[in-house]
């Protein structure tokens, strides 16, 4: 059940470039558990859209099924949303993007939704470089079905049931880098200073932008044995903070270990990277994989913008679609008319 928030707005709330207040980006009140990491992500998305001054109704939200996939109800109430079926959001998003290339697409999924049932679609979504921001609220478990291990659960982590997970966890960020994603990042739901700019950068990116957000499930995965709880995540956090620079600001170019690195996005906006552990450039896949892995081997989770291809070409461009959205075409553009049909008939006589 969703509760609609009171419509009252304080008259002096700060507004963004379009004159919207942050409340214009609110959704319904969350029905997730108090303290769920997913709610922090919803807030970060809302804030990112507000700060980037996106028109709420030009954003479309898509998700699968799970606690995480419910999130889109809880932000951007003025945007259309589609809570589809479990694990198959990538295909729904692909179709939506083809139909209208001019909206901003935010996909929200869970680790069960993406790494188990949705694995095939996820990989093919990456391969097609669909222009969207894809956020996995990664809690290492199936929240909505009451806490089973997901495929991202770490080896040896202990679920509510008490059994230690005997399988290696799938690292979605590495997978995305390997499979050719053009934007790959990781963050932590509790770290909004890092997460918000990453989401803004992802939405500005022209192509598939993946953000793996470690998002603890307070109900089923927040106890000593699990390696994905708030406590342990904070312990293992290897922060790589990212700061978003809006379009038209100065671009900084120097990049050395321990300093920041400016990467120009396709739309001209720039991201400053602060390289914590260094060792790879953010546009080098092998480097990214190695950095992620080496942090992993130290039992640390590398966060930040892990990989970026500034020359990304999205699916609409790859398919050479016209710039006018397909869903705007009318009979005149679509229907070749009776003369053409006559000539086709002619060829078949």
């Amino acid at each position, binding site marked *: 059940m969703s509760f609609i928030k009171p419509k009252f707005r304080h008259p002096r709330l700060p507004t963004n470039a379009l004159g919207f207040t942050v409340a214009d980006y609110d959704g319904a009140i969350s029905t997730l558990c108090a303290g769920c990491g997913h709610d922090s992500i919803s807030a970060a998305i809302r804030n990112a859209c507000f700060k980037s001054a996106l028109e709420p109704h030009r954003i*479309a939200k898509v998700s699968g099924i799970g606690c995480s996939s419910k999130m889109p109800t809880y932000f951007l109430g003025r945007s259309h949303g589609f809570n589809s079926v479990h694990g*198959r959001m990538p295909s729904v998003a692909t*179709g939506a993007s083809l139909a209208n290339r001019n909206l901003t697409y935010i996909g929200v999924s869970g680790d069960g939704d993406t790494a188990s049932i949705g694995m095939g679609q996820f990989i093919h979504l990456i391969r097609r470089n669909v222009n969207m921001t894809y956020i996995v609220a990664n809690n290492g478990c199936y929240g909505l079905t009451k806490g089973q291990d997901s495929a991202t659960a770490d080896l040896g982590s202990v679920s509510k049931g008490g059994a230690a997970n005997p399988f290696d966890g799938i690292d979605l960020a590495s997978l995305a880098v390997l499979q050719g994603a053009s934007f790959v990042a990781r963050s932590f739901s509790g770290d909004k200073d890092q997460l918000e700019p990453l989401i803004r950068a992802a939405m500005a990116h022209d192509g598939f932008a993946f953000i793996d957000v470690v998002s603890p499930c307070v109900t089923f995965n927040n106890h000593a044995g699990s390696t994905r709880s708030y406590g342990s995540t904070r312990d293992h956090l290897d922060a790589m903070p990212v700061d978003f620079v809006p379009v038209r600001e100065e671009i900084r170019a120097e990049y050395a270990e321990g300093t920041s690195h400016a990467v120009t996005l396709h739309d001209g906006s720039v991201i400053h990277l602060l390289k914590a552990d260094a060792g790879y450039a953010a546009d080098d896949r092998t480097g990214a994989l190695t950095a992620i892995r080496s942090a992993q081997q130290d039992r640390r989770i590398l966060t930040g913008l892990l990989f970026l291809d500034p020359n990304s070409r999205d699916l609409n461009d790859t398919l050479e679609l016209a710039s006018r959205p*397909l869903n705007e075409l009318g009979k005149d553009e679509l229907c070749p008319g009776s003369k053409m049909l006559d000539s086709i008939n002619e060829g078949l006589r």
Partner: protein
Amino acid sequence: MKTLLGINDFVVKFANVNGTGSASANSLFAKAIFRMGIPVSPRNIFPSNIQGLPTWYEVRVSSQGYLGRRGGVDIMVCVNPQSMADDIASVEPGGYFIYDSTKPLAPQLQRDDIHFMGIPFTEMCMREFPTPRLQQLLKNVVYVGAMAALIEIDFSVLKGLLNTQFKGKEKLISSNVHALEMGFRYAREHFDCPLPVRLQQGDNIAPHIREFDHILMSGNTATALGAIYGGATVAAWYPITPSTSVVDAFSKYAERMRIDPGTGKKNFAVVQAEDELAAMGMVIGASWNGARAFTATSGPGLSLMSEFLGLAYFAEVPVVLVDVQRSGPSTGMPTRSQQSDVLAAAYASHGDTKQVLLFPATPRECFDMTVDAFDLADRLQTPVIMMSDLDLGMNDWMSPPLEWDDSRQLDRGKVLDADGLEQMENWGRYKDVDGDGICYRTLPGTHPSKGAYFTRGSSKSEMAVYSERGEDYVQNVDRLLRKFETAKQYVPKPKVKNAPGLTKPASDLKLGAMFFGTSASPSYEAVEMLASEGYPIDTLRIRAFPFHRSLDDFIHAHDLIFVIEQNRDGQMRRLISNECEIPPGKLTAVLNYSGTPITARHIAAEIRETLNAAGGNVIPLHPETA
């Protein structure tokens, strides 16, 4: 020996090995007959592999324009030793068996009651053509040449076709013509030409063929054109026989007709998905976002899409799905035809669902119904499934030319634009404002502050708010039933015909037959056969589900109704008795599910048997007395 007589009425079958280039020679043969104005219906019967296995091309010539399979073979042209024994066995007494006599025929294969005609195809080609490739390929053209002599195909028509086919490649034309002539000459020199079964222009051709214009095209091509004209912009699919050529043809036509003239960019998107689930997901996503989108698949794909079909039904997203049926279950016989997905499609998905189905019977109808399917899906905000099959989809059919009314608009149904939203008070996505079960939809991005809602496959209130209240759920699914009821008035109506030769049904005529899709043609033929025997049978051709009310009327007006279809379980019969609340006993199943299309002979025989068994109750009514 029995003598077969058949001016423009016979069946020729070519027994080939697949991958040897016989397809184009065989279609040259059929097309030539078509060009002569003589009704012809060719069918490929091919294996699920790429090279080296038996494949057949069965061509029926029928002065009356019967396009279904007749059954039996009058002339067998056999260039495949693998299947020779079976091929010989399948020739009608008095028929002709033409074979490659380069090697002598094994004596145990001989039959006394058919004519064996050896032509040394291989030997002739080895002699005449330089490369193995040419020897292989042109062997096929040689037998077409021989057939030209035997059944009197107009040689200039053949040459004309070759000229068009190989336009600009003069060398190919001349070698092909040479091959044709080799065969022609050999036949003329060695056999009594023409045979008593043969072609003859004009004369005994049925008026509905002779007097009207026709084209020769496959159902899948027509479906693809329907998608073009219906305004489809997104096609997402996964390859599967026999539906692949739908999207292939769509791409081909779209590349030609849907390029933005200014920029050369595409006004369409074709995506080969990673599987059928993804294909259906893409269609749903695109349709939700306001594009016309479709997918094409066959049985296994339909099964895989069933969860998503339930979503689309319940979330009320338009979907056009072309199911080109093949033999199931499971992989079944992937290159054979059936109509066995009827129940799987009608009730696709768990929970209470009912899907809208269309049943085209001709390429013309594939075209028209595909256009309609997009309008229906938009109007009804639900999946619409085109139930084609391999026989219709992949074979060439004589069909009236496709027609397009330039004044026809795309009917996008109840979609509110920004103005519409401004005008409507208290809009709610699932409010049944008009009482027809169909609500007003909005598209993402339409209006800055109105019309946004959450689409979901879970239960919701009229205002599209998530709800687990029993009343909300019941109200919603009852409305979906109401919508399905509304659909009856929009879907194509059945075609009802009185028993042939009888202008109005006599009061004591109580026999009826119902059928759909590719069962229609042979059913009509069987009904004519039976009429000539004195059994008058009215017919109703089903064209859509939900069933139009006239179907109920037809059933009530008849005492004994045959439901003719191509599956084991009589699936349409079940669907009818379910949905029309008909005592199943009133409906007698006439079935064929061998994978090769049902024949008029089979249908007639089955009906005859039932009528005989019914004994005194059904007294043949001789046409004269009717």
